[in-house]
């Protein structure tokens, strides 16, 4: 079948072939558009599914308890919220993600050594989440902590990445300021 067509084409080169090449280009162009659309649809289809937020699950605010109930220089695990509430010696609070920044294992707090030690490739972090020993490349991620009516609350919806510990990551209870000013 294609053969006679080809001959026909050879009989009339000129305009016929330029029209043909234009149509060919049009087809190719449309084909490319179709492929891009197809890829777009597939990736949109596969985009992370929204999980319904259950109470106490991701995306919600977790109440960790009244300020004075949390001892100084301690780490408390909140399994539902998947974070640790660390209270530093100076009374400040930090909510640390339990996910190791190396490859994502769950890091336990080893209270004897006062370190988070990752069981997977033995990265270690101090109470502020700062890296003590590699391979972890960054300090542990944190969540926003705020204190309302003397109750410590953690916003677990958004994990905040950071390279290293900085003072502004720590939330202090109002009292401390009161004490200083008053």
């Amino acid at each position, binding site marked *: 079948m294609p053969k006679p067509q080809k001959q026909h084409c050879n009989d009339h080169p000129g305009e016929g072939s330029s029209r043909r090449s234009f149509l060919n280009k049009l087809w190719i162009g449309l084909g490319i558009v179709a492929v891009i659309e197809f890829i777009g649809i597939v990736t949109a289809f596969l985009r992370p599914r929204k999980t319904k937020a259950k109470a106490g699950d991701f995306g919600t605010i977790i109440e960790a308890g009244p300020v004075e109930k949390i001892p100084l220089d301690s780490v408390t695990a909140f399994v539902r919220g998947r974070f640790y509430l660390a209270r530093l010696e100076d009374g400040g609070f930090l909510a640390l993600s339990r996910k190791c920044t190396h*490859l*994502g*294992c769950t890091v336990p707090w080893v209270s004897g050594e006062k370190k988070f030690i990752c*069981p997977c490739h033995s990265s270690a972090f101090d109470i502020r989440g700062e890296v003590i020993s590699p391979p972890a490349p960054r300090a542990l991620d944190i969540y926003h902590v705020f204190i309302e009516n003397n109750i410590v609350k953690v916003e677990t919806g958004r994990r905040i990445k950071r390279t290293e510990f900085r003072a502004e990551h720590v939330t202090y209870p109002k009292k401390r300021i009161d004490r200083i000013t008053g």
Partner: protein
Amino acid sequence: MPQHEVIPEKLTLFQRIGHSIFPGKLRPVIDRQGYRRFFNTLILHFRPRRVPERTLRFTLTWGLGGMSVVLVSMLFGTGVLLKFVYEPLPGKAYESILYLQRHVLFGQLIRNIHHWSGNGLIIVAFLHFLRVFFTNAFHSPRQFNWIIGLGLFFVVLCSNLTGYLMPRDQLAFWAVTICTGMLEYVPAAGPWLQNLLRGGPEVGPATLSNFYAVHTALLPALLIILMPFHFWRVRKAGGLVIPRTPEEDAEIRGESVETMPNLILREVVVALVLFAFILVFSMLFNAPLESQANPGLSPNPTKAPWYFVGIQEMLMHFHPLFAFLIIPVLIIVALLSLPYIDYQAHTAGVWFTSFKGRRTALIAALAATIATPLGILADEYIIDFAAWMHGVPASISNGLIPFALVLAAIAGFYIMIKRRYSLTNNEAIQAIFVLFLTAFLILTVTGIWFRGAGMRLMWPL
């Protein structure tokens, strides 16, 4: 074209049914000759009628390509059976595996066969890849089949990785967490890709349905497309590469023999032996299953599946940017361009390229066997660029510098061996390949057996 030489009324019911399925000249199939002719034409759809006698030698192929095909078929068979019982939901997956093992007749055996065939396929396909490399079967006209083969190997690896998650036990959950965790280090597209694969920020329900769809539909479909393509290219290349000694002329094809029964019989024997082996192995050894996945508790140590442990071990020594991206990408590019390099000698069909090639391959293997463990030990106990070079970013102190050192060592080895033995580039490239191969195997062995709790080096006992 009147083909109905036979009057249907005179046939039995079964013959009439048979006739409706296979109409045409071959009817009636009554004698052994007829059957043979019939099956010959069926099988030979994929095969030439005659094949060069010398390509039948077991020491050319070691039956490895055929064994891969057998394993793939066993995986398809048992995989379909598993699908009837398995439920791809986080709460149900583990229980359905337990149910399969405890309450389904032969359930454990079917799971074992699927597990061991999958792992076996990696080994067998890898050995097949090595035999193709070392018989120089990737030169023209087989260049593109090498590429298809790499594609097949990639699909096999992905199948194993996605299948690894299915039981959703501790082993599965954390190995997949680590493997997908590596993606985070790929610049720019990494986090996006990781999110896409996992279906969210963590390994969760969406990850399981993603992996399930990929494992049971996408990858099998790719295999079904790529495998016939692979075989067709073998046929197009005029059959397998003809094995020869370095002195023999490449042009001599030798005698040809009938494919049926010479080739087919050999293949059936290999297939049956392998089948029996996998069956017995699966009766003796159960596929591992640990306790149900617990996202709050990582086992110590957590390792990637054994075929990725080599990469994980590199991660212990190089910055992730190099261990997970730059080095693997360079190796993949090198493998893809391997058949398209301009070679100085025609070596297709010669095991290890030449007599000199054999010697230099051995030297390369020895060099890597000595250098790799020394390198691992030195990096573990002595070298610490990150501490020596304070203030330099880790991607340079832990990445670029060790990488450049290793690269310089390899380049030095290449120049040294090429001059010393006045090698053709065929032989020199083979030596480098052996260097990488040996180093990779040693890294893998170290990661599997020599890393204990906290991934510290230890002696296996």
